[in-house]
């Protein structure tokens, strides 16, 4: 399978490596200024965009994507300025229609160490799912597919926000019980938001949701986990992926009128409106609710 990897995000190298392991003919381009960019566009029947979500909107118009390209986005959305999911950015800003998203616990460090990995490819286009799976699936990397593009994009983004929440809680010295609480309540929030957006709730308990949170929150070097720990020190970087997607999800939830207390708490700490302790206290003091989750 002829594929190209466009961009220079943290996933570029590990993804290229896994594609090569799977036997794909891989070309890369860091961007339009790259001498091999045109060749990478002409070469591929499938393009993986590894640009971080925050850079995608600005980069897309210059990438030279064409109707024949099938595109898989690997960053995390939604785009904070427009509220669009990254796959939507591609279909709204380029002539490409056949688009999908890659998610799952693909840790760059673990891929580099040669550990087995897993990923999920979501797209409404069966042809794209099949091609992407064929390009990436190998004994090193199991690839699953889903047609629930919205659910996978939402899960993967919320996983970054939940991982940051867990990082913050760990930095505060909270125990495993709080981790369990954050994960389960976070998933409940995610289901509510997903329902409002027409996503399949089952997607959240898959690789893109639970799979990513469990993996990322156990990896000390994960960027979202580290961003969460930095929140306690009041050192939040608004451009950090986890912090940016949390802000975008909170904005999105307000638009669709869904209550996300946990993600809102993380956002409030990130924006300096509350300290981590105040945010946790606020969460714990919420009125008790009768009934299930």
């Amino acid at each position, binding site marked *: 399978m002829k594929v190209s990897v466009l961009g220079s995000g943290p996933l570029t190298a590990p993804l290229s490596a896994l594609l090569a392991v799977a036997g794909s003919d891989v070309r890369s381009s860091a961007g339009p200024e790259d001498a091999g960019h045109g060749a990478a566009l002409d070469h591929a029947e499938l393009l993986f965009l590894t640009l971080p979500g925050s850079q995608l909107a600005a980069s897309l*118009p210059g990438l030279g994507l*064409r*109707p*024949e390209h099938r595109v898989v986005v690997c960053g995390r959305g939604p785009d904070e300025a427009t509220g669009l999911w990254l796959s939507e950015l591609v279909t*709204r*800003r*380029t*002539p490409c*229609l*056949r688009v999908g998203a890659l998610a799952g616990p693909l840790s760059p460090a673990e891929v580099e160490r040669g550990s087995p990995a897993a990923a999920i490819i979501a797209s*409404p*286009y*069966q*042809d794209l799912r099949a091609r992407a799976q064929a390009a990436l699936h190998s004994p090193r990397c199991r690839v699953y597919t889903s047609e629930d593009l919205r659910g996978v994009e939402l899960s993967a983004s919320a996983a970054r926000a939940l991982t940051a929440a867990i990082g913050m809680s760990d930095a505060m010295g909270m125990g495993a019980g709080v981790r369990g609480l954050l994960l389960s309540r976070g998933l409940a929030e995610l289901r509510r938001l997903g329902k409002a957006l027409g996503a399949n709730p089952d997607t959240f308990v898959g690789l893109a949701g639970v799979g990513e949170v469990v993996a990322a929150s156990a990896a000390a070097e994960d960027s979202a986990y580290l961003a969460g720990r930095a929140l306690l020190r009041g050192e939040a970087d608004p451009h950090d992926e986890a912090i940016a997607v949390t802000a975008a999800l909170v904005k999105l939830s307000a638009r669709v009128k869904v209550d996300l207390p946990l993600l809102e708490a993380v956002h409030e700490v990130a924006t300096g409106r509350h300290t981590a302790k105040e945010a946790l206290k606020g969460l714990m003091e919420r009125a008790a609710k009768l009934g299930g989750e």
Partner: protein
Amino acid sequence: MGFGLWRRARYPRLMSSLPAIYNAPFAHEQTEKLLTRSRARRVALSDQALSELLSDTVYQERRRYETDRPEPGEAERVERAAAAIAHDDRAAMERSLDELIAAYTEEIHNRFSPRAYAAATRVLPHALTRLVTATDPLRLITGDLDPDRRIVVQGQIDMVKALCERGTVILAPTHLSNLDSPLIGYCLYRAGLPPFAYGAGLNLFTNPVMAFWMSRLGAYTIDRRKNGLIYKETLKDYSVELFRGGVHSLFFPGGTRSRSGMVEKSLKKGLLGTGLQAWQENLRDGRPKPDVFVVPMTLSTSLVLEAETLISDALAAEGKSRYIIVDDEFSDAGTVFSFLRRVLNLDSAIYATFSQPMDVLGNPVNAQGESLGPDGAVIDRRRYVCDASGAVEWDEQRDRVYTERLARALVRAFHRDNVALPTHLAAMAAWRALKRRHPRLDTWRLVRLGRDERVVPKASLMEEITALRERVGQLAVAGQIRAALPEDADELLQSAIVRFDSYHTRRTIEPLEQDVRIDPELALYYRNRLVGYGLDGDAVAAEVSA
């Protein structure tokens, strides 16, 4: 010019411009083409799958006969299919399938009457003009015969004309009333566009006078009571062949009239996808004019003939079971003509807007028929369906997703080119004023309010009108809707009341001394035309905010 002379002068020229579908041999050719398509598909069907396909039709048709008397020969065909299934006889099943397809094609096609079609498309405008003048003979003397003042045809007319020369055009209008088809026929004539074939529901033929017109207006028949897969496939194949034959066609992508009065948000994808299929087949065959274009058309009318029946049906619990209404205002010829006469006496009562044309994937096109990308640059749309060598890559699943995208683009166009009229805005204001008086009541209770409970202070209504007028104005500036509204709130209300009272026997908004009395059902129906824009606490349709 007398009608006889006119016909002699114009008819031969018009006939020569008619597409091949109006020629008698086409019916036979059409059946053969549809049989060929079906036979090609069934090669891949196992005996079991073929049996299931036929069983579906046998079941659906037998069910239909419980309420509808079958046409002569119909039931016998279905029973022959049942016998073939029972004997597990593949040859007999295939013969039955052929027989059903031939019968369905005949039924779908046989409403065409080429000579009558040519005449009717020319007569209708005159008939409408006469209707306008019938109520006011003075207009005959003053020469005030111009229906353009009543029916505003606007939008991308020149581009649609150009595209009709470059390929096949599918006109996809919103649908409120059974009068929409003849109205659109008239709009096409006024716009100087060529004839369009269209799929008309069999139920349209319940009104004897309208049936006379409908059966002569190039309609092919869609029987929505037939739910079997074979019928649906035949109808889709028929549509593909129409487009392949270069026949410009119109069909209502919403499938049926909007019961609630809302602009369509959900469209039927089956027929909509046939344009994409025809385009790809044309590419495969290297046809000289392979392209198929889609033109959304938004109809906005001050009044709707069937408003009272439609909203009652939308509100009724059994609404779904009355998918095909045969006893509404349309079935009474007197009501139809009374309505037309009254509506056509109102200035700017009807707006028909041709929206930005698009390709079969939902991309906008220019007057040259080229597809445009998000940045306005020309893109090669063939690459969505062809490989690098130019060969079509067949993929039904992909095409379904493409068609969903086209449907969303249509819904977006419908909302953006919907024209807010005084009756819509005053109705929404009235509905809001009612809600203000009864804040705890839901829709169902509001529509059942007693006579005295429907009274609201006029000041409250005027406040709502003023606020809504301003917000609609803002939406119009943002390009999310069109508006044809007086600036002044009093004038707007007066204009709406005159229009409502000109037709409806129940008064939608009845002025009292300091108050107004509101008919909740009618207010709800006309208010619904402005739903989807966030004006009344309703969610903004995703396609509108896109």
